[in-house]
């Protein structure tokens, strides 16, 4: 992507994200009904689940860029994969934190080691945290880019396992909201959820472009310094 396109798109994307967030928050607190069983705390669902799906999307995007690096040897793919995984770890942390708070009010505990979905998400999160240990323990260059790409691709296998764990384990703790018969919620709840999910994905796209622009600027500056010192 050239710089001009990024300059035009980023403010638009940021504006779209802000608008979607305003609509999502209005829908969550003024439109979606209060759940009969869980009460107000059910509203955590509208942020917690979209954040978790966004974390999966970030890791998936990072793996796709890693695949492109190995396949087409794209120059920018390594940086793009790294930034997407970095975003994934941030969204993953928020998933774990909001999930813990929701678990405390719903189940009376901060964490349940017996719940497959929780544990598998933690494994996925820790796997991608270790990506940074690998990246910063190797000298920059093509071999580091290849190693990181292979690692990112291995991690992507955990995404469907983590996503479908709730269906495979038939856990009584974690409710199954999305079934083969459609979403188990009212139309207003589903609309609110969709808008919140769009807002979160749009936030990822904005932060991804912002961080990528900063990294590219930093890289160009380093090159300029080296040229100046030569």
């Amino acid at each position, binding site marked *: 992507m050239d710089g001009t396109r990024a300059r035009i798109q980023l403010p638009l994307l940021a504006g779209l994200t802000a608008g979607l967030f305003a609509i999502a928050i209005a829908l969550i607190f003024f439109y979606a009904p209060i759940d009969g069983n*869980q*009460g*107000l*705390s059910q*509203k*955590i669902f509208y*942020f*917690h689940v979209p*954040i978790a799906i966004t974390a999966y999307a970030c890791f998936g995007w990072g793996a796709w860029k890693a695949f492109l690096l190995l396949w087409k040897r794209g120059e920018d793919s390594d940086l793009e994969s790294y930034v997407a995984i970095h975003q994934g770890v*941030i969204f993953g*942390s*928020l998933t774990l*934190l*909001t999930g813990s*708070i*929701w678990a*405390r*009010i719903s189940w009376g505990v901060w964490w349940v080691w017996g719940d497959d979905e929780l544990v598998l998400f933690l494994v996925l999160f820790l796997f991608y945290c270790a990506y940074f240990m690998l990246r910063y323990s190797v000298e920059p260059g093509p071999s580091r880019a290849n190693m990181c790409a292979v690692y990112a691709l291995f991690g992507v296998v955990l995404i469907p396992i983590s996503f479908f764990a709730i269906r495979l384990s038939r856990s009584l703790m974690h409710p199954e909201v999305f079934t083969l018969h459609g979403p188990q919620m009212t139309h207003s709840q589903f609309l609110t959820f969709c808008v919140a999910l769009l807002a979160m994905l749009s*936030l990822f796209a904005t*932060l991804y472009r*912002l*961080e990528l622009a*900063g990294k590219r*600027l*930093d890289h160009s*500056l380093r090159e*300029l*310094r080296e040229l*100046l010192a030569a």
Partner: protein
Amino acid sequence: MTPSEKYTAAAYLVVFVGLLAYVLIIAAKLQRIQRELGEVVEKLRERESREELTQGRSG
């Protein structure tokens, strides 16, 4: 405030604080890049004026 309200507020606050912290880190990084870019421009100007001075003496 009921416990349900407290925990819901806490969950939304965690997301807000997390994103705010991220934006602040990015802002700090951009400020550093801006400062370093200023230094590079300054060095380039110094080099240019030195070259002009050398050319003036030799010419």
